[in-house]
């Protein structure tokens, strides 16, 4: 059964997420300097690895690096609307925006939450929705658990791939944890004191 929540309901997933091929060793770069970490943080995919990525037929979500490096090859499929892009948590939405004329030609952008406590995706989603005007599906993938769904929704996600070992059914309820948030965000840009006359 599908574990995908989209627009407030559990739906079948018509997309295939394309991962990087497994490599023997994942190297976590110990960033020596913050300025360096800002750009890289984690070992970026090598050209060889990018070239190795197998892209199946149908609707697929490819890594940002693959999207950028193999754009010519993917061009007809992009035009056909069957290419989505996923970003790792250290990748910058600006790099995606810079690599495409109109961000809304992408039917789907997915953002990976490598760990429950990594909140970079909240800013990334906010930027995509506000600064870059992205209107299509924005999907949270990775360590996606119900207790962050409300925050994800507020930051502009509209689809959540709930971690496989958890119930999407249970997670649905958490989207309504709070009824009137204090501050403005993507889903409701006005703070509560601009929405309502308060005593």
């Amino acid at each position, binding site marked *: 059964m599908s574990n995908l929540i989209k627009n407030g309901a559990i739906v079948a997933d018509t997309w295939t997420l394309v991962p990087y091929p497994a490599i023997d060793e994942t190297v976590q770069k110990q960033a020596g300097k*913050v300025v360096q970490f800002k750009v890289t943080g984690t070992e970026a995919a090598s050209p060889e690895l990018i070239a190795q990525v197998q892209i199946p037929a149908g609707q697929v979500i490819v890594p940002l690096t693959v999207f950028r490096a193999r754009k010519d090859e993917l061009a007809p499929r992009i035009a056909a609307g069957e290419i989505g892009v996923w970003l790792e948590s250290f990748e910058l939405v600006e790099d995606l925006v810079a690599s495409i004329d109109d961000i809304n030609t992408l039917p789907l952008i997915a953002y990976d939450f490598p760990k429950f406590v990594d909140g*970079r995706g909240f*800013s990334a989603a*906010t930027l995509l929705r506000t600064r870059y005007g992205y209107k299509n599906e924005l999907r949270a993938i990775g360590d996606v658990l119900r*207790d962050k769904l409300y*925050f994800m929704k507020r930051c502009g996600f509209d689809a959540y791939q709930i971690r496989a070992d958890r119930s999407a059914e249970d997670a649905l309820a*958490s989207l309504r*944890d709070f009824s009137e948030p*204090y501050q403005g965000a993507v889903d409701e840009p006005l703070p509560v*004191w601009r929405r309502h006359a308060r005593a």
Partner: protein
Amino acid sequence: MYRYDQYDQRIVDERVAQYRDQTRRYLAGELSDDEFRPLRLQNGLYIQRQAPMLRVAIPYGLLASRQLRKLAEIARKFDRGYAHFSTRQNIQYNWPRLEDTPDILAELASVEMHAIQTSGNCIRNITTDQFAGVAPDEVVDPRALAEILRQWSTFHPEFAALPRKFKIAVNGAQSDRAVVRVHDIGLEFLRNEAGELVVKVWVGGGLGRTPIIGQVIHDALPWQHVITYCEAILRVYNRYGRRDNAYKARIKILVKALGIEAFKHQVEEEWAFSKDGPGTLTQAELDRVSAYFVPHAYDKLADCDPDFNEKAATHPAFAAWLKRCTHPHKVPGYRAVTLSLKKTGIAPGDATADQMDIVANLADQYSFGELRVSHEQNLILADVKLSALFDLWQTARAAGLATPNIGLLTDIICCPGGDFCSLANAKSIPIAQAIQERFDNLDFLFDLGDIELNISGCMNSCGHHHVGHIGILGVDKDGSEWYQISLGGSQGNETTLASVIGRAFAAADVPDVISKIIDVYVEQREGDEPFIDVVRRLGLDPFKARVYGAPATAKKELANV
């Protein structure tokens, strides 16, 4: 003070329901320890050495008497009849049962309180001056803006999982009693030459493992922009702060690595998009919240009371208490009163449920039903008439709340330390007690004058040892507890970080070391020269020489640290 409307109340009620379900799922085995941890932490629940510890928010340190009574009731019903006031104006329960914590939150919600974001990697309780609204040197009462910031930061979705914790302090007085320069963001509200309210924004300060004094990122931000500007700072931090090493994840490390100019450039670029957006504050909203903080209905009094003068002249103990525990008030005939939670033999900052009830009664009787918590871990009745001070003092003294030691050597800032905290390397409460016992002669303490001694049981520096005139840090050496002494730290407008004097000491030696440091001060001071001035004038050498013996030996020993 601020009162919840339906929106505030609904948020805390919904939070109780959400947390109750999270706890239920954890106890039912549906959530792993690792998954429950960030959830409970965002609600102030730590799993400690003995039991869970629950930290309850006291926003900007302000409490109503009915809230304090509820805190007392919780201490009796769910804990062991006492609680601990922390250095961030919060209150901590050391012995609740995990199963009871949802009920405790429901009790808190019934008096407009919560434990939201008192821990975890999010925006924490907003702190401010304990004399806000009454201090004669106040430029702007910061409480309305602190409340606006509290609401804005509560469940802010974009900043719900920051690289590390994030502390904001607000000051509106000439003298900085909120230590804004050692916060992730320090907001200093002031008036510019045209009389307009502006904010001096400090960023990147903090204590902990790597103490750094904050830098000014904006000199005079018009107050309407305070939220959008803070959001710009937080967004840059959320995206680019380090997440690979928890010890290097605070914003101070990012600011230092980029340099304040480059960091400011990024923030300003970000801010350009949100400036004047819907997050911009309006005069109407400031007025709405400020209406909760209008001055009390003070009586018109002379700033002198013959009966009071007579009592002060004839009761030396009362006079001593007046000198140390009462503070000037902007309204004639009133004083602010500090009730000391630093009685010898009691863990600094601890109060029993009975004491809390007594303080609540005192607040009702003498101080418009309100009180404050200071980051020095004492309680404050901010609005007491001169004529009421003697009666108040007698009640407080009988309750063990009138030790006349505010600002003195025994008014120790101290974290819970190794007795309770699972992060601690060493105990801190017994060290504080040993020092209080050593210096129990009030005349001598009075003669020594203002000395701030701060103790932390580990590098996380909850006891603010970096900014103590004398700082004590518990360290772990080969599995046993040692204490490193530092000198020359200070808080306030001239915030400085203390320097370590040399190798660490065993617990039993600490009182002797402090005595030697005090001896040097007494010998070297000129006239009324305060301790911190002597340290600044002489440097560390004479203190080191006394503590470690001849300088040559000290050097050799230093090398062994």
